[in-house]
């Protein structure tokens, strides 16, 4: 399984990558911004995208929009990563068309499992 991580924080990308690769045995590509993420998505065609919500410039929802508007990437399931755990926030994000929402801080050890659970439920 190939996962694309889009997050502006280096550290988080690194941790997530380690978690997914080492624990979840997944292939990981990452991008540091929304636009870069969209490009990477087009190029790499991942099975799922882990998308940070709060990013400078083009934020998570906007990036999702971007992905959806491109037929190449429109069908890739997107999982939001957010620091805000408010139910309303989660629902809002879900209603945007995300496959799932994971909150930060996440446990790197279980990240892969969580991703899988979300994808399976789809």
């Amino acid at each position, binding site marked *: 399984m190939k996962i694309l991580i889009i997050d502006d*924080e280096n*550290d*988080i990308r*690194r*941790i*997530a990558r*380690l*978690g997914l690769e*080492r*624990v979840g045995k997944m292939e990981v590509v990452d991008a540091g911004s929304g636009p870069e993420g969209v490009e990477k998505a087009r190029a790499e065609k991942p099975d799922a995208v882990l998308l940070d919500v*709060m990013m400078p410039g083009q934020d998570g929802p906007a990036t999702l929009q971007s992905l959806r508007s491109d037929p190449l990437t429109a069908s890739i399931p997107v999982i939001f990563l957010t*620091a*805000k*755990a*408010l*139910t*309303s926030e989660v629902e809002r994000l879900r209603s945007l068309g995300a496959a799932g929402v994971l909150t*930060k*801080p*996440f*446990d*790197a*050890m279980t*990240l892969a499992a969580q991703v899988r659970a979300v994808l399976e439920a789809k």
Partner: protein
Amino acid sequence: MAEPAAPRSRIPLTLSRKALLIVALPLLFQILLVVAFHAMKQRYDEDNRWHLHSHEVMAQADGVLRLLTEVEAALRGYVLTGDPDFAKPYDRAMREMPAALASLQVRVQEDPRPHESAGRLAELARQRLDAAEEVFILKDTAATEKAAAAIRTGQGAELMDEFRAEMDRFNTEEQQLAADRRAAVDASRVRLNRFVLVASGLTLLAALTPLLLVSGVARRVEALAQNVRRFGAGEPMRPLGRGTDEIAELDRALRRLTEDLASASRRLTTVLDSMGEGLYQIDRQGRLVYMNPAAERLLGYRLDEIRGQPMHELIHNRAPDGTERPAATCPLVGVVRDGVVQRSTEDHFVRKDGSLLTVQYTSAPILSDGRATGAVLTFQDSTERQRAETALRESEATQRAIVENMLGGLIVTEPSGFVELVNPAAETIFGYPREELVGQHLSLLVPPQAAPDPRVYLKTAAGKALGRITEWEGRRKNGEVFPFELSMFEFHTNTGRHFAGSVRDISERREVERLKKEFLSTVSHELRTPLTSLRGSLGLISGGVLGDISDEAREVVEIAERNCVRLIGLVNDILDLERLESGRMELRLEEVTLSSILQRSAESVMGMASAHGVSIKVPATLARVRGDADRLVQVVINLLSNAVKFSPRDGAVTVSALTAGPWVEVRVADRGRGVPAALRDAIFERFKQVEASDARQKGGTGLGLAICKAIVEQHGGRIGVESEEGRGSTFWFRVPAVGVLTERQPPQDVPVVILEQRPECRAALTMLLSERGHPVVAAATLAETVPALGAHAVSLLLLGTPPGGLSARECREGLRGVAGLEPLPISALGELSHPDLPETLMVFLARRSEDSLLKALQADAEDEGETGDVLLVDDDQALLGVLARQLLQRGISVRVATTGREAVRRGLLKPPRLLVLDLGLPDGEGSDVVKQLQQDPRLATLPLLVYTGRDLSREQEEALRLGPTRFLTKSRATDDQFLALVSDLMGSPSPTEERA
């Protein structure tokens, strides 16, 4: 005051009447006398007349005699002499005779007494005359001889003698009569004289009566006059005696007058004496005539001390500052001089001791014929009043100062919304100077959204804002719309009703809140981001994913990780709490079963609990609550973990739930060290733990209870703790309940008897059933049960753990014998299979009772969600019981159905793991069940054990398949075989055919 009583029975004798009497009586008297006198006189006259009459008669009779004699003589003479001179008297006498006779007759006839004599006389006279005539004639005719003969014969003389005799008689009579009459006359005269005497005497007397009366009146008038005099002199009056005339009236009136005057005088005195105001009266020269006690008191003088002294000089000639006040300029003196009323609200009198008395007074002249003869002055001590006025002024000034200086804006309007008052702060807030606001309508200040009808807007707003603190938008003079906080209230004065609002511009606060909100969201992101990396990194290292590390390194990393987790928890808690407390925590409210919440919480904490060696007991409950399930779980988890943390090893944490009115109360009890009384409220505050070292030792952020409190209170509930130091604590919270009873009411009148040895099981069962509205009788031993069964028309008995070492079967036999109760199988009711219910529950149902109860109980089970691994279907309830028990004893949960339809329904509702079906259901339902179930994809693969009373053909068997299917013939099956088949079917997914 009583009047002298006037006699009512008689006609009142007023003076006029008396006067009338005085005049009338004597008059009457006189009249009577006169009349009497007259009568008497008449009598006298009468008597006299008759007396005279008698004499007249006699005279008359004499006359007649004389005439006769004359006649005789004449006749003789003539006859004898033949002298015609004798004829003349004869003729004359003869002529006069008739008249005389006649008049004698007449006279006699007048007399009422008999007059026979007179008649005879007359007759005789006539006869004589006749005889004389004859003789005369004879003579005349020259029959002188004859005539002389006639004379000589003496017929005439006889007649005359007769006549004379008769005359004598007559005269005697008449004389007697005359004498009698004379006597009468004399008597009459005497009477008359006497009468006159008496009458005179009486008249004299009569003349005295008026005198008496008059004197009486005069006396009484005099007495009256004396009384008046006495009254004038102040002496008591003498009574006048009874009487009904005007004098008595006058007396009574006088008395009344005097009494009225007296009481008026008393009233006046009372008034004067009890007046709080001082009053004094001065004469034309200003000298004191009278002073009332209050004046005495106020001025310090007694009346008799200063009577007659000039008042102005005494009390009013000095001003407070000591300067003289001459009488000429004193307005009080002017009262008498000019005859005008004077008033003053503030002046000073000088007391006896020289001190000054602040007064207000009114002075009026006493007028007589337009001139003032004195004056009356009333005054009162106005020290108090002035003090009060001063105080009032000061208070008003203070209040005004407050209003003017307060930082909050204040606007007061009258009820229809026109502004009456604004303070400077309000002016500043709205940007209008006072003059532009007062008198204007509040609509001036409403925001644009109030258009088109500001007044309606205001009215609605007032309804919402009155008595509360609310937030609105307003518009300043410069058009700027801004938010403000309004505390609106109403008040009443005697000018009417007013509305007032305290206004605070909260633009800044809103701004701050907005920033804070932004901050929170920023913070949450900002804090969590590094925490993610932190946690992630540490997790990876400690997870061994990045290669081996030394034990020490691992230990250290784990420390770091733990603390990282703790930090994350803290951040979450803070943010949670912040949101909760500012009301921005959104709760998703829905109906949830308390049981699910408790179970989830218990499961979460289970790991930690067993690590501590603490057991958690969660009750069975059918209660439902309205709330955010996740949040409530958070609360329970919090309470449970606290309880576990502070429980001793091998201790137990007990959870209980009860409904209290509209609330559900959850209680978490531990046997830990308890909470001291002083801290019972405080521990729900942030960061408060019972002991400072707790955070280190026991973990926890110290926010847990604060968050619980916030969550519970957001639900509208309450939270608290009951505890005794050293004896454990019970944390409780309440949240709104949702109705426990469902629409379908079970038959209320059926008491259920519970026979269960263990008290906690008993309690759990009792609660379960009572929640459903069943009356419950709980017993611990068979012995207790029996009377209970006897006392109530019990239809249902629940047998839990068989009491007193009896086996279930012994119990069953015993009960059947006692009360004709038959055992029925009941599935362990799904969610309720947990520690507090007995492992097996045998239900005894009286055959005689209605099916409805059983149905109700079965239906109850449905509500809790179909669970139960095995669905037993058989119309033979006894058999069902047997089978059920067998399975239950092996820890296999069961559900039952007694009809095909029921079986299908339940199967569809939630597929069991195994269906045990009696083919011999009435109406061929057994095979129907299978057919129907075959339709459903979920159930078509269901393991099935067909229980039948007869052997089936192969084709029949084929038709009756679902998933893995076995067949059992009742008559030949043993319990063991049955159980073996069941476990077989439940264990393996692959079907194997086997004939049994």
